């Protein structure tokens, strides 16, 4: 595509690759996100593979198997962790291959004689312990990361789409349209946005998409403002005048000339939008105004952690996970900004 093939973009890409920290962080982030989208294969109470009497079963995907399929006398789904132990004891050539974390994010694993939260332990294979209702913390962290990442990425697409559309129109059309939206944005950006979301979320219990729409409803202004300025700047340049002199229509000027020149800079904002999306969702979940109850989320784990401070692994694992992800995002953001605006400083002494 033309947008990526021009020498300026390639030079930026080279500069981005040169800042090792940002480049490695970008790869790590990509790998972690991709892994989290395959979370069912990493943390699940269903095994990846069951071999029973020479036949292979894949319980993670496809139909649910009842205990009868595996020679148990139950109609419901067997506990595969127990099945694994049974098969191992019986030693008849049957086996169960569990995921690395053999617990699902919504599964309550109650250990007899002990109240949850359970401390991290290798023998129970709760590597980061369990939360207050016996759900595996590591599994919930992974699924929660997926939710948060998905949420902030979709939110980003929404905000940027609205921002680019309205901002570009404001900058190109100008006049009354511009003035009207200027006032709207001024009001919108002065509304204490987390506060209003809390008011709305306290009344309707929002699901994933509702929460997303509410956040996008208040979050589109920053990008709009930026796009307006960028469009104004581009529209007054000579090449736009040349295009107009050649008889190009308004839509052609916007889509073929102004947008390709202004949109590319938007990428410098992407890491910050992702980070703010994750932190905002976590804050809302922490306050109890976020996604509904059983959804695995970092904010909900944080809340449990602050209510059970003697179980330090709850807060600890979330804080470490957040630090890791947000630092990676910030490194990527720094590298992208350097790639776009390489500052060469000089000193005089």
């Amino acid at each position, binding site marked *: 595509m033309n947008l990526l093939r021009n020498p300026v973009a390639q030079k930026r890409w080279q500069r981005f690759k040169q800042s090792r920290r940002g480049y490695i962080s970008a790869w790590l982030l990509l790998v972690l996100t991709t892994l989290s989208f395959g979370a069912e294969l990493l943390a699940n109470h269903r095994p990846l593979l069951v071999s029973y009497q020479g036949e292979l079963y894949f319980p993670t995907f496809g139909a649910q198997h009842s205990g009868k399929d595996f020679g148990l006398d139950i109609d419901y789904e067997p506990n595969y962790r127990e099945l694994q132990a049974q098969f191992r004891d019986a030693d008849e050539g049957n086996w169960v291959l569990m995921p690395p974390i053999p617990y699902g994010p919504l599964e309550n694993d109650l250990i007899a004689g002990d109240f949850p939260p359970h401390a991290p332990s290798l023998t129970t294979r709760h590597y980061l312990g369990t939360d207050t209702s016996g759900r595996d913390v590591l599994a919930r962290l992974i699924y929660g990361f997926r939710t948060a990442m998905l949420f902030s990425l979709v939110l980003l697409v929404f905000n940027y789409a609205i921002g680019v559309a309205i901002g570009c129109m404001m900058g190109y059309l100008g006049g009354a349209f511009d003035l009207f939206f200027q*006032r709207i944005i*001024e*009001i919108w950006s*002065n*509304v*204490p946005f987390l*506060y*209003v979301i*809390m*008011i*709305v979320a*306290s*009344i*309707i219990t929002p699901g994933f998409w509702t929460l997303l729409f509410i956040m996008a409803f208040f979050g589109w202004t920053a990008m709009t403002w930026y796009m307006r300025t960028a469009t104004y700047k581009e529209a007054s340049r000579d090449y736009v005048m040349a295009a107009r002199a050649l008889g190009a229509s308004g839509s052609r000027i916007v889509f073929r000339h102004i947008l390709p020149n202004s949109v590319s800079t938007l990428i410098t904002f992407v890491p910050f939008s992702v*980070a703010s999306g994750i*932190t905002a969702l*976590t*804050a809302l979940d*922490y*306050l109890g105004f976020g996604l509904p109850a059983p959804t695995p989320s970092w904010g909900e784990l*944080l809340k449990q*952690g*602050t209510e059970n*401070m*003697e179980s*330090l692994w709850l*807060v*600890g694992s979330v*804080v470490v996970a*957040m*630090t890791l992800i*947000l*630092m990676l*995002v*910030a490194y990527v953001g720094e590298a992208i900004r350097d790639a776009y605006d390489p*500052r*060469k*400083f*000089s*000193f*005089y*002494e």
Partner: protein
Amino acid sequence: MLGYFVRRGLLIIPTFIGITLLVFSITRVVPGGPIERMMTQAQLGGEAGSLHRSEGGGTLSDEQLEELKRYYGFDKPLLSSYAIWLKQVLRFDLGLSTRYQDPVWDIIKERFPVSVFYGVTTLVLTYLVCIPLGLLKGMFHGSRFDNLSSAVVFLGYALPSYVIGIALISVFAGYYDWFPLGGFVSDNFEELSPLAKAKDVFHHAALPLIAYLAGSFAVTTLMMKNALMDNLSADYMRTAAAKGLSLGKSVRRHALRNSLIPVATSFGNNISLLIGGSFLIETIFNIDGIGLLGYEAIIERDYPIVMGILVISSLLYLIGNILSDICVAIVDPRIRFGGGSR
């Protein structure tokens, strides 16, 4: 110049009306307001009292409902009740809290000192730490000191302050028990000597203050550093070096004031933090300030308080924006607002 600020001041009015109208209609349109809350309370009370078989059931009669609606002003259409509310606000009357039945203004006023204490301390500490640190980092860019402090700054930059607050309180108050678990002062505060009182306040304030600082610390430091670095490579600094000024002297005499401009722009925005506080940090540390009040009011659907806090915080924010511009004009006499092109 004066005309510009007057115009900016006048523009506060439509923006203020826009913000409050937006939130006002949200509290109006959505279900689950104070009346519904009272009705459920009456029903619950009715069930509890049903042993006595008195007063004929727990639900409110239509008349009572009408009376309640009139009492809270829910009986009129949206715009006219907003007009009534606005007129009251202009007379500095924020109405009665639906939860406490006290004037909203009194309730908010009670919480002011706590939030102002945190706000002012944070503001002073931020500038006291960040400006020198940013200057040093800029002057010795690339040194070991710069790299080491960058690691800390970056951590504060990447992590939101509430996460830092949660981490601090669970390690140092929950696990190690070095600091109290929250609150503003101890229960026996009244009995303490003045010195012990001050110690008590700061003992409670240490962790929240770090969390507050973490929020603004990184941004201000980096802003200061980048601004200084920009100025260090400017021509006038070359001239200063050429005529034989040392680096320290040329920074102090020439670059410092120019580098303070971006920091000054952010000053006004801190005004709203000064009094409004952060409800996240106040909730975490259970500090009885404006932020926690707003959070509780939202949960309890105490809309007069919600609107009252919104009025104060949005006014502060709007005034803060203008203050920022005035600060910039003071620091940088070259800037002329309002004239010609932007």
